[in-house]
């Protein structure tokens, strides 16, 4: 398999995730779309760890770190959502506009 | 060789199904014996065909999908719950030659794949569109996620001692000393956490008959219900085998009694674990939800972390360090 196929897959998934972030209103789904984008980036890291200019396992190490950070991000994101839901009674991202002048 | 590649897993499927059939009967018999009852004794000699009759009854039952249920998800959920249960059996080494997939990250594969079942349970509970089912599913998911952490942490000591994630390698490392002795704290934490992962008494809150009707599978009937039950008992099989492999030395004989073949040794230890599971079910009452969470996060997790620290410390001491 050439490296371009893996990169193309990553690009497709990233674009779908981006579209999800831009169009979905439910904040849980927006968070989850961000996770999809992070996954697409991870895919590139792992692909380059096999096909890169200087292939080594460092790409896998990087993807492990980014998975960890993504997990922390998801936990904090959901906690913030709960706090918001308790105060405003909704999880629709476009209804959270109390800072709007 | 090619034929064995295809036949092996099929035979394994039937071995596991046979185990499930026998285990349910065995469980009812043992609990009956412990409660001074006789247990099932009508169908076949010694009630041997009782489970077969029960399964046949389930298969003949009407297949009901509630009207307000999410139909696709309702039908898909038992499959999501069952497939991982059987997929984890692939990495279990029964003897040094009888192992289907000897992969490098076997232990991690087992833990990772088994966590998918939670999605099936959650999806089933939600799709049923029933309050009891939803509460049962949420409880189940919360419990399984909470206890997965001490479960994995308790394994770190074993992984440090064996120096590998490969299950065959872990058994090889126990030639001199089974890990249950040096890793006793790890074993206790692992065993309690695995009881919770299996949703068995005293941690059977997700399907507490007396408070939740039956938990996440209230609305299920017929063979879909059978799939959930099957997944549960296949996990009993897999988890008992994993405990045997990790802590009881797998197929290694005790006291150098090598006249028994390795497979028999494995089965003996395996049966001991299964019996202990049933024994605990007959002995302990169910605990409360808040006690469950407190036990997981405040007792088992610190204990598991302490075990990692202790193992690392003892590993550096000359003499006994070789056992860690």
């Amino acid at each position, binding site marked *: *398999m*050439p490296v*371009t*196929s893996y990169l*193309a897959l990553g*690009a*497709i998934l990233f*674009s*779908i995730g981006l*579209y999800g972030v*831009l*169009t*979905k209103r439910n904040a*849980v*789904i927006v*968070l*989850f779309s961000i*996770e*999809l984008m992070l*996954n697409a980036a991870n*895919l590139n890291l*792992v692909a380059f*760890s*096999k*096909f890169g*200019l200087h*292939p080594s*396992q*460092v790409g896998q*190490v990087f*993807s*492990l*770190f980014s*998975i*960890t950070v*993504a997990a*922390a*991000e998801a*936990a*904090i994101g*959901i*906690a*913030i*959502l*709960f706090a918001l839901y*308790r105060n405003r009674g909704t*999880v629709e991202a476009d209804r959270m506009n109390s800072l709007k002048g | 060789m090619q034929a064995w590649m295809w036949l092996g897993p099929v035979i394994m499927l039937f071995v596991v199904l046979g185990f499930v059939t026998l285990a349910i009967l065995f469980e009812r018999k043992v609990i009956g014996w412990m409660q001074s009852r006789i247990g099932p004794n009508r169908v076949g000699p010694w009630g041997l065909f009782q489970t077969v009759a029960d399964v046949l009854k389930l298969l003949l039952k009407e297949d009901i999908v509630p009207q307000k249920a*999410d139909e696709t*998800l309702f039908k898909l959920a038992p499959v999501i719950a069952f497939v991982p249960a059987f997929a984890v059996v692939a990495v279990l080494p029964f003897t040094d030659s009888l192992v289907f997939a000897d992969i*490098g*990250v076997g232990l*991690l594969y087992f833990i*990772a794949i088994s*966590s*998918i079942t939670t*999605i099936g349970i959650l*999806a089933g509970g939600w799709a049923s569109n029933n309050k009891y089912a939803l509460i049962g599913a949420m409880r189940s*998911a919360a419990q399984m996620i909470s206890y*997965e952490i001490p479960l994995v942490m308790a394994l770190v000591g074993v992984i440090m001692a064996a120096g*590998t994630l490969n299950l065959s390698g872990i058994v090889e490392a126990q030639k001199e000393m089974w890990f249950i002795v040096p890793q006793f704290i790890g074993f206790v934490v692992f065993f309690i956490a695995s009881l919770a992962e299996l949703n068995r008494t005293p941690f059977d809150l997700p399907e507490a008959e007396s408070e939740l009707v039956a938990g996440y599978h209230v609305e299920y009937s017929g063979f879909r219900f059978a799939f959930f039950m099957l997944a549960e008992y296949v996990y009993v099989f897999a988890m008992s085998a994993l405990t045997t492999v990790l802590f009881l030395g797998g197929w290694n004989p005790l006291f150098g009694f090598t006249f028994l073949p390795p497979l028999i040794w494995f089965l003996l230890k395996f049966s001991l674990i299964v019996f202990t599971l049933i024994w605990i079910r007959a002995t302990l009452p169910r605990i409360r939800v808040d006690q469950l969470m407190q036990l997981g996060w405040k007792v088992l997790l610190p204990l598991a972390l302490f075990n990692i620290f202790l193992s690392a410390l003892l590993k550096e001491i000359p003499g006994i360090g070789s056992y860690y």
Partner: protein
Amino acid sequence: MQWNGEFLAFFLLSVMAIGGAVFMIHFTRVVHMVLALAFTFLSIAGIYVLLHAEFVAAVQVLIYTGAVSILMLFGIMLTKHRTSDHSDSRSRHQLLSFVGVAAFFGVIMWVIYHTPFSGGKAETAKYTVANLGEWVFKQYVIPFELTSVLLLAALVGAVILAKKERDA
């Protein structure tokens, strides 16, 4: 491009991954969306196995399919929803987003297919878990410790944020 096992596996897994993601966009019920994405994450784990990253694959299943997806399902079940996420009133916004994303996608694809990747030969036999551990705990031990601090901070932060506010 020759038809071999690796190509077939890659093809199937990427169709599954993209399919899950597209269904996520297409579905209207929130729970279905999360399950579709969980399926995508599982397929990506399969792709990692193809790339000789078994450990990352196992971690991917453990973290994403096993933990993050269930966290998201919890998030959905503990908050109230209009069960469907209909966004028909914002078709202009949707169109603009689509055009923007499509342009972005086109540029990225153009770059990917016009860059000469002269990759080295990977010694995949050395891609073992033991070697990965050597990397993490020797050269990258400081980032590793930092992530553990980050996780601890996230744990404490999540508990505090999600806790019921006492009327003080």
